[in-house]
């Protein structure tokens, strides 16, 4: 968890998204403050875009807008990995 106090990295975000969302595979790019995540997950099936994005935001909680200044999200429904 100590890594979370340092500057956020795309690798950290990818790992946390994939750990936090069932069946998720993420591609994350970013500079430590602004990130872009493309996420395919089986958990997105049947959910509205709003609900899909909320799942991703929930992984990071209050870090969004703080430590993670901005996170752009594109979601796709995927098959279980």
């Amino acid at each position, binding site marked *: 968890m100590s890594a979370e106090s340092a500057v956020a990295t795309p690798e950290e975000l990818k790992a946390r998204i994939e750990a936090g969302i069932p069946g998720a595979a993420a591609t994350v790019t970013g500079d430590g403050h602004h990130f872009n995540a493309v996420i395919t997950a089986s958990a997105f099936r049947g959910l509205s*875009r*709003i609900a899909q*994005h*909320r799942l991703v*935001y929930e992984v990071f909680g*209050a870090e*969004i*807008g703080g430590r993670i200044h*901005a*996170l*752009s*999200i*594109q979601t796709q429904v995927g098959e279980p990995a």
Partner: protein
Amino acid sequence: MSETNPLREEIQNAITENPVLLFMKGTPDQPMCGFSARTVAILQSVGKPFAAVDVLPDPRIRQELSALSNWPTVPQLFVNGELVGGCDIVTEMYESGELQQSLGAEAEEAPAPAPEVAQPESKPLSIEDLR
């Protein structure tokens, strides 16, 4: 009324009263964030009037908005009282044509005239309106 949260109530009223309402950083004229700027540009391209609230003058606006909408980031677009999403979702919906549909832009027989960015038909809200 005295036991409720007046600012949150004002925000809820603004959402209810404005069919297309964008909470953003800055104003449509002077967006203060790239995501807000992009969302404004998309709405202007659709050509339907929209109201806008600048969340920057008072951090409580953003806090209360996010608590109300269960959405952590700004901008936030509301259509007919419902959260549509932020910049990413608005962009996706614009590219797929869903946004134009939800704003009723396709129903127009003739293309709607592009509104002046500075003077949307709906009353632009400001922090003064929210207090």
